[in-house]
């Protein structure tokens, strides 16, 4: 099985909170799936951030080029399109952020892969990946099961990894 590939989002040289939060969620999912987490950094001069991500004990993949100094949805879509072909990740997870929402739906259409957006929790059981998300002003939750696919795409909502985990990650960021 392919890896759980997580986009470590950053802005102006700083990792975004959602990147830490996904590092609290992705390892649990990878364990259930019997695979490993790979954190992906896309940008320019990424050495320092790569070290920070490696501190989570995950493999870090870096796409480092002045081309990627600023976020651009088309460029990110091209990178992920190639990575999906090469690495065949089981899961591709990004934050449900202004970056994730700007390219993940287009990527899903391009690669004919399933997407669940704004996920608040994940579970892999009996060979099925299920994602929970909110509807109707948060008054109802929907459970969506992915049909079998080579790669499952999902965007993860910031602030839904659980407060305890969130606090410890924030603390980790400062140290």
């Amino acid at each position, binding site marked *: 099985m392919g890896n759980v590939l997580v986009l470590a989002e950053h*802005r102006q040289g700083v990792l*975004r909170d959602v990147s830490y939060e996904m590092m609290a969620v992705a390892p649990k999912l990878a364990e259930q799936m019997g695979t490993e987490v790979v954190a992906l950094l896309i940008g320019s001069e990424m050495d320092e951030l790569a070290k920070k991500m490696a501190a989570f004990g995950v493999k870090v993949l870096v796409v480092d080029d002045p081309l990627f100094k600023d*976020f*651009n*949805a*088309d460029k990110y879509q091209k990178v992920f399109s190639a990575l999906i072909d090469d690495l065949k990740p089981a899961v591709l997870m990004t934050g*449900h*952020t*202004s970056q994730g*929402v*700007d*390219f*993940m*739906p*287009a990527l*899903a*259409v*391009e690669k004919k*892969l*399933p*997407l*669940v*957006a*704004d996920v608040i929790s994940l579970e892999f059981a009996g060979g099925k990946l*299920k994602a929970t*998300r*909110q*509807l*109707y*002003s*948060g*008054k*109802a*939750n*929907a*459970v*969506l*099961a*992915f*049909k079998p*696919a080579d790669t499952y795409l999902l965007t993860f909502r910031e602030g839904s990894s659980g407060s305890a985990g969130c*606090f*410890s990650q*924030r*603390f980790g960021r*400062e140290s």
Partner: protein
Amino acid sequence: MKTVVCIKYVPDTSEAEVKVNPDGITVDDSRFSFDINDADNYAVEESVLIKEAQGGEITVVSIGPKKSDVMIRMAMAKGCDKAVRVEDERIAGYDPLMVAKVLAGAVKSEEFDLVLTGCMASDDWHMSTGVALAEELGVNHASMVKKVEVLDGKKVKAYRELEGGLMEVVEVELPAVLTIQTGINEPRYAPIRGIREAQKKELKVASLEDLGLDAAAVNADASMVVLEQLYIPEVVSSAEFIEGEPDEKAEKLASILVKGGLV
């Protein structure tokens, strides 16, 4: 400038009680009041502002039941020129990728330079349909747009609102899809004359077949996800009241903050 604006008829659930039907995958919407999705309302206004500045024509595209004609007529009363409403119960409406395919089918039947739609629907919160639609149409896009400048009829400058109040400015070559944020403008009220004129404007009702689409490509079988269950989440209160004299309260609060790694 030929613009298509895609709008959705959504229930207002901000004050309503939400109940799941016995089928476990739909909600009882019989008591909800429906209206245009908030962000789509801003997209309609933006399309009208662009038409007023640049000239051109606006086509409304919507997927929904007959009762949503009220919403479509209101968009026409504000300045949109014609409309296509797709009505077909076979569409897997819970999957934005399927919805985008249907919208693309409807948009392709129109000439367009620009497609505007709200960046998010207030009922299902996916924030995915507009960007998926751009890919289906094979055109550029910018999402979460808070300001639009038409540069020369071939390009627009789109200001994307990012988290933390930052703006990202991108130039997008037309044709393109822009997903519009609330607050980009001040949606107008429909003038009385506009409401009268709207009744005479063309509103086509189309089935999937009319759009040249195969139901088997956009139904629940075609969707790569299954809506398994809807449920009402348990409301948990985690508020903690700090009791005691002021200095005791301060001490307790400080220790919570230190323990949480917040100071």
